[in-house]
């Protein structure tokens, strides 16, 4: 290690510190944005340092640099354009795509390192192990994340896709990938063998994610995010770059913890998710079925709801997947604003897994300019329901299913919003059909609940109009 290498290492440590500080600041809404910028600052430092370092130690030629510059330009433009134009409802799939490309890049780096060594008679295990692991993990995460993105986008069916013998095929592919990986560690660098690892891993990634229900995809994305972190760390070992090792390990560990937290909030184990979802609810919810039992159901009109809301003192809005699906975040914010101006105290009760991605509901509401102090987390919201005159449930179902308190059903034990503790409840959804978990919800037939059957976007707009008339009348 030369003094120059030493200095480069120190700068990498500094940029790693900025990554950590940035992540730390992302814990609170008030500092999160600055945290992300600090993390980006760390990235700029790491990249600039690497450029200097690579230029000094260069063993290549201008073609390599040209390939890099063109590639980076293409990738950067694609990334920025996507990031700028994506609809907030499509954030989950975009995150998944960015994760896929990260994993792919890590695999490509390891592959290139391997190719550069094909003239060696024997690779040191300290290099070959990380290379092979990187190709393995990176390819799985590349293919898996793309499939997950496809499911989230609806290009690939959200149904758990399985076929007879799927599990056998799965195990077979995994064995091929692992076998080739082990063989590739020893002897002279063998390119075809590494290609087998690559292809088998790609296939395995596809097969792994295909059978997972679309609604579980976000947890899988988070898990694959952690995988990419590990792949990047392996790339760091392969090319001896501390920047990659630190940042990769950081994301690998952080992503794992985040995944576990998400899974816990959904009352599932990560293992169970990987082995296949418990239902295909996204399909069921696509339209109200005609066989609904409407006895015991009190139906409301937009006017009923408007009067109830206008008379209330405290209103809590519980948004769910239906609100996101209908893209009704602006309508709900408008209604809330109208009511607030009219003197009603309106807050949002946000379940951690309301919708299809943890925390996504908050992003949607933030997009509609809802200040974050109006978004109550589960605990806060449940403390407030007791004192709440009207709980307005918009396109949510499982997250406020009181049956979760009873054992023996698909949502048993899941922490829920105590919507049924409110003095009265209004539910906006299109029909009586169940949500993701595929079970019926006693809340809807509770005497104090009124159902307003409508698409979330249209229904909220109608209520807003009715409130306006009522207020100005």
């Amino acid at each position, binding site marked *: 290690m030369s003094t120059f290498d030493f200095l480069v290492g120190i700068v990498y440590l500094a940029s790693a510190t900025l990554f*950590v500080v940035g*992540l730390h*600041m*992302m*814990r609170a809404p*008030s500092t*999160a*944005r600055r945290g*992300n910028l600090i*993390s980006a600052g760390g*990235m700029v430092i790491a*990249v600039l340092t690497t450029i200097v370092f*690579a230029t000094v130690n260069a063993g*290549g030629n201008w073609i*390599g*640099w040209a*390939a*890099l510059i*063109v*590639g*980076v*330009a293409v*990738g950067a433009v694609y990334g*920025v354009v*996507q990031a700028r134009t994506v609809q907030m409802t499509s*954030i989950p799939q*975009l*995150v998944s795509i*960015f*994760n896929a*490309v*990260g994993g792919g*890049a*890590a695999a*490509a*780096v390891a592959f*290139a390192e391997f190719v550069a060594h094909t003239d060696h008679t024997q690779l040191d295990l*300290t290099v070959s192990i990380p290379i092979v692991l990187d190709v393995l993990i990176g390819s799985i995460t590349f293919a898996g994340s793309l499939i997950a993105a496809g499911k989230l986008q609806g290009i690939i069916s959200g149904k758990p896709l399985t076929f007879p013998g799927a599990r056998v095929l799965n195990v077979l592919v995994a064995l091929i990938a692992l076998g080739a990986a082990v063989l590739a560690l020893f002897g002279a660098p063998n390119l075809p063998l590494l290609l087998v690892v690559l292809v088998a891993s790609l296939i395995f990634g596809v097969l792994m994610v295909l059978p997972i229900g679309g609604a579980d995809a976000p947890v899988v*994305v*988070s898990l694959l*995010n952690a995988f990419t972190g590990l792949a990047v760390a392996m790339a760091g070992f392969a090319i001896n*770059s*501390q920047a*990659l*090792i*630190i*940042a*990769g390990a*950081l*994301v690998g*560990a952080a992503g*794992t*913890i*985040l995944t576990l937290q998400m899974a816990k*909030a959904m009352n599932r184990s990560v293992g169970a998710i990987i082995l296949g979802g418990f239902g295909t609810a996204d399909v069921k919810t696509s339209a109200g079925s005609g066989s609904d039992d409407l006895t015991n159901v009190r139906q409301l009109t937009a006017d009923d709801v408007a009067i109830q809301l206008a008379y209330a003192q405290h209103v809590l809005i519980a948004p769910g997947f239906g609100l996101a699906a209908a893209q009704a975040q602006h309508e709900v914010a408008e209604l809330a604003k109208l009511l607030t101006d009219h003197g009603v105290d309106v807050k949002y009760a946000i379940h951690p897994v309301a919708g299809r991605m943890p*925390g996504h509901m*908050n*992003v949607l509401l933030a997009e509609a300019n809802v200040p974050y102090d109006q978004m109550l*987390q*589960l605990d806060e919201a449940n403390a407030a329901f007791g004192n709440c005159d009207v709980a307005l449930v918009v396109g949510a179902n499982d997250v406020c299913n009181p049956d979760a308190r009873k054992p023996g059903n698909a949502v048993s034990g899941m922490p829920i919003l105590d919507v049924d503790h409110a003095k009265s409840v209004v539910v906006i959804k299109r029909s009586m059909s169940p949500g993701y978990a595929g079970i019926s919800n006693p809340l809807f037939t509770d005497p104090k609940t009124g159902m307003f059957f409508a698409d979330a976007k249209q229904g909220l707009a109608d209520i807003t109009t009715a409130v306006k008339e009522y207020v100005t009348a």
Partner: protein
Amino acid sequence: MIETLFGNLAIFVLSLLVGVEVISKIPSTLHTPMMSGSNAIHGVVIAGAITIASVANSPAGYVLTFIAGVLAAANVFGGYVVTDRMLQMFTRPTSAKPETSKKDVS
């Protein structure tokens, strides 16, 4: 050689510990931006793309450099921009009452 390996392993293990500790108990409000933000951080793989560009000297090397460049750049640029776009939407409370300390980072 073995000294380098030990240094790298130590860095790896300690970074894992930092990662675990830095995440413990984030509010669910920020789960999505947090995931996106950590996603952006592994875009540091672009530094790896730069390194392989500097040593590439075969057609396969050039192609892999190009691929790594495209993918890594999409990850890092897109990741930071979309995270920033999400977070910028989290507007400060407009009401008078100041944020409670509970919600704040220590």
